[in-house]
């Protein structure tokens, strides 16, 4: 590639006397952007298919099953459909902002993939401020959404945009505060550094490191639901209240961008939680081959992430939406104070047990397992006691 660029420079493709470094930087940036896009978009799109199938199963429906095996290629068909549709821009809208908004949202969803730690070597850039970057960049979404709400010149869109801004900014605080305990414990902001500080076995995950981390993980997960406009915090696009919220006036590919970003952000949020609390890609060393190890680590990471994504879909299929004042009070009255307590508690914990405490880890693991068992028992008790399929239609 360098040789190709050099020959292009020699031919004068970039002007008479270009700065060689500048050309290299731009070329690498374009290449990275293409790679990121190619990684991020299929992830987000496949998640849409998973979500629709899972949701359908929860709701006693079948879901998309026509395009490809089990409707797996539905996302492709939908994408093509959206691209082919007319891109309507309302005449009263602020056309420039209206067009720009979806790109900001998509940007906010593509950039975090740069530091996504898929395995010990599969990471585009192991930034030394990785976790800071991955929490900061998605906040661009709020600019895009607010811009979309304002530029649409539609009151429902405006309310949606304002709600979204209020919600994302509020929940950034508990989410950010829940990340600090881990930074305190590891002393690094690098994604890989945080994962390496954990072990492959559950009791060495930060989720179970101490009681404060356990609470922080839950707060981080719920806050990430809110930041991504997921049920029960899907107020910005509350269909029954605001028609479609900030996306009311959008159509065609621009509309698709918003939703691709939503689903992609779901995966990113899951990846953050996995990295910080669930041990990331850590897998016991079973093979000398780097390729095999990386594949196993990748699979571990993906399974953990997809499980969290599934939980988020499950929540979407189960819970109603909270009201805006309830959402705000949940954040400011409960999450923010609790996350501060978590932060102080973890600081104290680190001061007392600088190397961690194995007994506490095993105790937390036991408590976690007990909660899981209780939860499963509850789910089993309350689901499908009818246990009977009825077909009453005269012709079936």
């Amino acid at each position, binding site marked *: 590639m360098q040789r190709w660029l050099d020959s292009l420079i020699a031919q004068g493709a970039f002007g008479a006397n270009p700065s060689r470094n500048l050309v290299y930087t731009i070329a690498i940036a374009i290449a990275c952007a293409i790679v990121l896009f190619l990684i991020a978009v299929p992830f987000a799109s496949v998640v849409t298919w998973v979500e629709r199938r899972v*949701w359908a199963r*929860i*709701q*006693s*429906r079948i879901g998309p099953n026509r395009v490809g095996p089990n409707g797996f290629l539905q996302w492709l068909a939908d994408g093509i459909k959206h691209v082919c549709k007319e891109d309507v821009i309302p005449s009263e809208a602020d056309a420039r902002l209206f067009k720009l908004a979806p790109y900001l949202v998509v940007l906010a969803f593509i950039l975090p993939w740069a530091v996504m730690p898929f395995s010990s070597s599969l990471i585009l850039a192991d930034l030394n401020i990785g976790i800071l970057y991955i929490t900061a960049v998605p906040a661009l979404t709020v600019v895009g959404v607010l811009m979309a709400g304002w530029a649409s010149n539609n*009151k*429902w869109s405006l*309310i949606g945009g304002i*709600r979204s801004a209020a919600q994302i900014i509020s929940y950034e605080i508990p989410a950010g505060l829940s990340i600090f305990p881990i930074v305190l414990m590891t002393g690094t902001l690098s994604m890989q550094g945080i994962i390496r500080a954990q072990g492959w076995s559950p009791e060495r995950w930060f989720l179970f490191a101490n009681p404060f981390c356990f609470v922080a993980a839950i707060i981080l997960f719920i806050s990430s639901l809110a930041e991504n406009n997921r*049920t*029960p915090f*899907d*107020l910005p696009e*509350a*269909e*029954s*209240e*605001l*028609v479609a919220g900030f996306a009311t006036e959008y159509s065609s590919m621009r509309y698709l961008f918003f939703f691709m970003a939503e689903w992609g952000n779901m995966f990113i949020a899951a990846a953050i939680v996995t990295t910080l609390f669930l041990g990331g890609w850590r897998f016991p060393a079973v093979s000398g081959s780097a390729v095999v190890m990386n594949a196993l680590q990748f699979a571990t990471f993906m399974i953990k992430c997809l499980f969290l994504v599934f939980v988020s879909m499950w929540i979407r*299929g*189960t*819970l*109603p*939406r*909270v*009201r*805006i*004042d*309830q959402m705000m009070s949940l954040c400011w009255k409960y999450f923010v104070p609790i996350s501060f307590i978590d932060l102080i508690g973890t600081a104290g914990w680190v001061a007392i047990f600088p190397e961690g405490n194995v007994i506490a880890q095993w105790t937390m693991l036991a408590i976690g397992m007990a909660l899981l068992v209780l939860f499963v028992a509850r789910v089993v008790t*309350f*689901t*499908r*006691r*009818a*246990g*009977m399929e*009825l077909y*009453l*239609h*005269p012709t079936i």
Partner: protein
Amino acid sequence: MSEAFHTEEMTLNMGPQHPSTHGVLRFVIKADGEVMREAIPDVGYLHRSIEKIAEKVGYHGFMPYTDRVDYVCAMFTNQGWAMACEKLGNVEVPRRGEYCRVIATEFNRLASHLLTVGLMGMDIGAMTPFLHALREREMINDLIEELCGARLTFNYMRIGGVAWDLPPGWREKAIAYLDHLAPILDEFNSLFSYNKICIERLANVAVIDAADAINYNLVGPNLRASGVNWDVRKDMPYSVYPELEFDVPLGSGEWGTTGDAMDRYMMRIREMVQSSRILRQALKQMPEGAVLGKVVRNFKPPAGECQIRVESARGDQGWYVVSDGTGFPWRVHVRTGSFAAMGMIQKLSRGLMIADLVVLIASLDVIAPEIDR
């Protein structure tokens, strides 16, 4: 700052095309941010002159039109029209016919309430309860389809009885369905009704006290949710309801205040349990015999007027019919519960949030065609 910073109320137009207005309704909302100053209902988008049509199509011919008065529970409007004509013309209905009517209407009440509770789920953002409720409603539609051939606009009843007897094997299917529904209702409650978020959203929202409920002429479940014990089936018995045993559930304020949205919502769940009870009894003690009395084709009731009341899924439905002795009614008027409920919305909406307006509409269970006819 306060002089420089200019604020104004936002006027929002909710409907007629809005996903949660249960048909073509329109509200003009004056809002201060998320809090509403007022929501003014604007009715009339679904006015189809059904009452006037009655004056032109005659007594028998009007029966299919009554389905359109309230398409969610068309059996009640069928029954109301049939009862009004029978009272005018002194027509005797065979006892089996009356039982068929009760069975059909109570199944329709189940279907209507299932839709209502499901829509409540959808209006506060949970799709799953809606689809689960519709799944159960489909089975009732299957049963009713077998009974009268239609799934929505039934045209099942006739002056003097019902059009068709129960098909063979229908009774067993109906009982199997009731057996199936009881645990499903429990499941529905644990999935949705007793969900913490659901209770938080519905409890203490849009409270209607008993005096207000009476003053604003609320009927049916909305009235009973405020603690007023008035059920036409009990207090002005018609058909074979005196022979059937059932309770009238009342709003208790178990989750908040008596007469809040949660009470109105739970009223539907409780009424479904009572309807199942009525259905079991009716299916059991149904006598043999004809289902349709003798009524002349050219039905001409003597001159006079009558007013009958039916307890529909949306409450006390009044039918006022004036006959001038010809084959066409001189005047027909339907008094429907949704119309009265719409009148209450403007008062209740003051100080609610926009999200609560959706809850309020869903909890009052207004159906657009019933408002406008």
